[in-house]
């Protein structure tokens, strides 16, 4: 109501033909601060969680006497949480589309088991086994997507069924036993690092190189975005804030790179995750199909009447989730160096929690892939930090539950405050 009225008020008393130039000039004057405030407020949960993540890191850094950010532990955090983060990114898209997927933990276990059977019993090479695993994931996603998109069974039911189905399948495949070991190459998916070699003594060379490239790309992107906004006469951040933003980003990248470079370099799985993050982030933000996912989650009927092929989009969202679940299953199996029937238990809940902490909404239509990663990292750093401090898993669960509640609660409270 309020904004409706405020909007009506901004034009000169209801008269048509508002001078557009004047309105734009008016915005430009007070624009800078307001623009910043608006951007922050619009992405409150994500920014809030970024700040929360930073706070948690600082807190545990102090608490663990600096052990948290030791290079070896940073690598550890990345590797420990990789499979949850991969799942969370897919889960975010599923939730944006207005659905849920409860089967990803079981599916990850099933695919891990399948990979184990292929490699241990049938002597598949590890790349062949990995490719087969991803195909199995895609097929499983297509199976669930079919029931959800084309038959119209609610995703909660279909994936609940899938949860039982794939868990049972895992036990059948493995006959209740763990299967091991895997070839070195397969283990490296989760445990490996990029190769060493080069002029630097104290640092991992390739990692430093990657860091430099990332810095260059980020700066170039920021600069180009700003130039294009200018070109289109859109509002831009004032130069001082822009420089500050760039410096902050560069500092974060440099710190992270140097930390990794002083241990064993970039873990392979980090590269995989970054690839998925950039790829899916781009698709969700810039590709037509991404827009269609948001539109479907926001208002299904309206999207359909605007020509969005709702069934096809829903179907592919679940295929994507299936592939990511398969990848997560492989990463987890590679980390354990075994396929086990107990793999992936509660993964779906961790992934869903990460998505909601990272800004998803129960009713769909909102969220970003990056948000899911931030949400996953909040949980991951909490896990790692609490373990380092020596808090038992019992209390860890309690604290994680409260964090989830607080994150979403804060968002609800914040929206209500802005809305009324």
């Amino acid at each position, binding site marked *: *109501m*309020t*904004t*409706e*009225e*405020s*909007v*009506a*008020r*901004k*034009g000169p*008393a*209801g*008269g*048509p*033909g*508002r001078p*557009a130039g004047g309105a734009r000039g008016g*915005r430009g004057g007070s624009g800078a601060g307001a623009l910043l405030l*608006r951007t922050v407020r*619009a992405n409150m949960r994500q920014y809030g969680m970024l700040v929360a993540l930073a706070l948690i890191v600082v807190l545990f850094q102090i608490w663990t006497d600096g052990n948290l950010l030791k290079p070896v532990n940073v690598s550890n955090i990345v590797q420990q949480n990789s499979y949850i983060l991969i799942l969370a990114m897919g889960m975010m898209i599923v939730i944006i589309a207005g659905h849920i997927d409860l089967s990803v933990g079981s599916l990850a276990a099933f695919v891990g088991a399948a990979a184990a059977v292929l490699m241990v019993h049938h002597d598949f090479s590890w790349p062949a086994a990995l490719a087969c695993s991803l195909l199995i994931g895609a097929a499983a996603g297509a199976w669930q997507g079919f029931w959800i998109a084309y038959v119209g069974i609610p995703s909660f039911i279909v994936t609940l069924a899938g949860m039982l189905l794939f868990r049972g399948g895992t036990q059948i495949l493995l006959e209740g036993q763990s299967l091991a070991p895997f070839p070195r190459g397969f283990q490296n998916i989760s445990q490996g690092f990029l190769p060493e070699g080069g002029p630097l003594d104290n640092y991992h060379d390739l990692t430093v190189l990657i860091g430099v490239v990332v810095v260059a790309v980020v700066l170039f992107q920021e600069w180009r975005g700003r130039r*294009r*906004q200018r*070109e*289109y006469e*859109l509002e831009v951040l004032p130069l001082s804030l822009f420089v500050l933003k760039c410096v902050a980003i560069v500092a974060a990248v440099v710190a992270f790179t140097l930390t990794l470079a002083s241990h064993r370099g970039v873990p392979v799985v980090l590269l995989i995750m970054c690839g998925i993050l950039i790829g899916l982030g781009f698709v969700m933000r*810039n*590709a*037509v*199909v991404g*827009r*269609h996912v*948001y*539109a479907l989650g*926001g*208002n299904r*009927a*309206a*999207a*359909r*009447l*605007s*020509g*969005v*092929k709702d069934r096809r989009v829903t179907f592919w969202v679940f295929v994507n989730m299936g592939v990511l679940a398969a990848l997560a299953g492989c990463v987890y199996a590679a980390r354990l160096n075994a396929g086990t029937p107990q793999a992936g238990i509660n993964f779906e809940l961790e992934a869903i929690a990460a998505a909601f902490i990272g800004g998803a909404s129960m009713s769909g*239509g*909102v969220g970003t892939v990056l948000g899911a990663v931030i949400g996953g990292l909040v949980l991951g750093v909490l896990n790692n930090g609490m373990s380092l401090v020596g808090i038992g898993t019992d209390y860890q669960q309690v604290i994680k539950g409260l964090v989830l509640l607080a994150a979403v609660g804060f968002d609800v409270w914040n929206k209500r405050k802005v809305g*009324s």
Partner: protein
Amino acid sequence: MSSVLEMRSITKTFPGVRALSGVDLTVRPKEIHAVCGENGAGKSTLMKVLSGVHPHGSYEGEILFEGEPCAFRDIRASERRGIVIIHQELALVPYLSIAENIFLGNEHALRGVVRWGETVRRAAELMRRVGLRESPHTRVADIGVGKQQLVEIAKALAKRVRLLILDEPTAALNDEDSAKLLGLIGELRSQGVACVLISHKLGEIREVADTVTVLRDGRTVETLAVRPSPGAPAEVSEDRIIRGMVGRDLDSRFPPRTRYRGPDAGRVALEISGWTVRHPVDHRRKVVDGVSLNVRRGEIVGLAGLMGAGRTELAMSVFGRSYGLYAGGTVRIDGREADTRTVPGAVARGLAYVTEDRKTYGLNLIDTVSRNISLASLPKLTRAGVVDEHRERRVAEGYRDSMNIKTPTVSEQVGRLSGGNQQKVVLGRWVHADPEVLILDEPTRGVDVGAKYEIYTAVDRLAAQGRAVLLISSELPELLGMCDRIYTMAAGRLTGEVAREEADQEVLMRHMTRDGSRGDR
């Protein structure tokens, strides 16, 4: 006691916005007091202050109800005093019975256990009072909107209402149900229940209201007597009210029509023949039965009909079979048969349908203005599957300026815009899809007078560019003011085709109420 309700210099400020500044409203006993104003004028805020949605202390000014000052903390407090508000969106639980709904939150219970006999008996009594002939056990989901509105009033009566506030009660009702509802309000007046009626329909205000207060930009503009009464002899005209609402003289409610002078002017762009649709659940029922019509380039053709005539059903079925079960008929666009079996197919052939229900079928309310505008034509803003966001913004800003969409920026959430501006966003979306044929379904429903004019101007411009426009509307003056020809429908069949020169409201109404089964035209 000279007044039931007196609101004195009410001022309500939201962060950054003054929604109401010094509004006065006085309702006398046994009076139907209409409140009107453009969307955003502050009507709803004023009613929220009155009913305690905005609690005492969050506004300035004072409220006297039956002579006593009031300080409501919430809705329950105002209801306890007998002030009941019925919102535009009905607050009924669809899967509960009528009786359960009437006493929802107000149950007849003994130590926490509902006394069903008493509940049903009292419900039946209240239903008789509002003239609702249904079993108290019927589920609310199974009765029409008109009857649901009556349930709401019965619910208010159950709370011993002294002042009934109705927020656009007839917006979703057909003429018959509207008349019934307005009659009921009149009856309640004679039983001593005063009523505040918020409405966009000036005809309705003239019909039932005793007094009208006009709000504009959060201020009281004037209070006029609708009926001659001692002390206020003037009878007020619709134009007089409109002048107060918009703050300027409205010489004409419709823009002059601009003729299309292209080489293909007058060529038939849309031709529907023998279109038949069956009800999605009850397959025996034909909702649309053998309808044939055509629209030429540069022409605006009206489609009139009462509720349930099958106009929306026809349009949605033609547009990608989005309603019911297709049972025959063809669509030709520019003379060639068009495959409109799917929405993307229909869009590809240059068809666009602007829905009557923008909240359910039109907009993604949680997304931005610009993304809502681009949704139906993303491929146009795309290079190699990648959306050019800057161009998207520019396009949206273009429509913001040309259609005068009132929004701070095009990145604003559509849900925060007023109804008229939301409607312009939907229209902008389909204009950007660059269709040959537009079907507009009630494009000005729930839109205030000023915004209506802007929408009419946009529609005229579309026709002037050589597009064919089929305009579905329940407001006859709108059809008469905008269209070149008008078709009428009744009970799923086409019952008439009238040229603009021969048409007036009576002629149309005669066609619209004709028994469609003979289909003589």
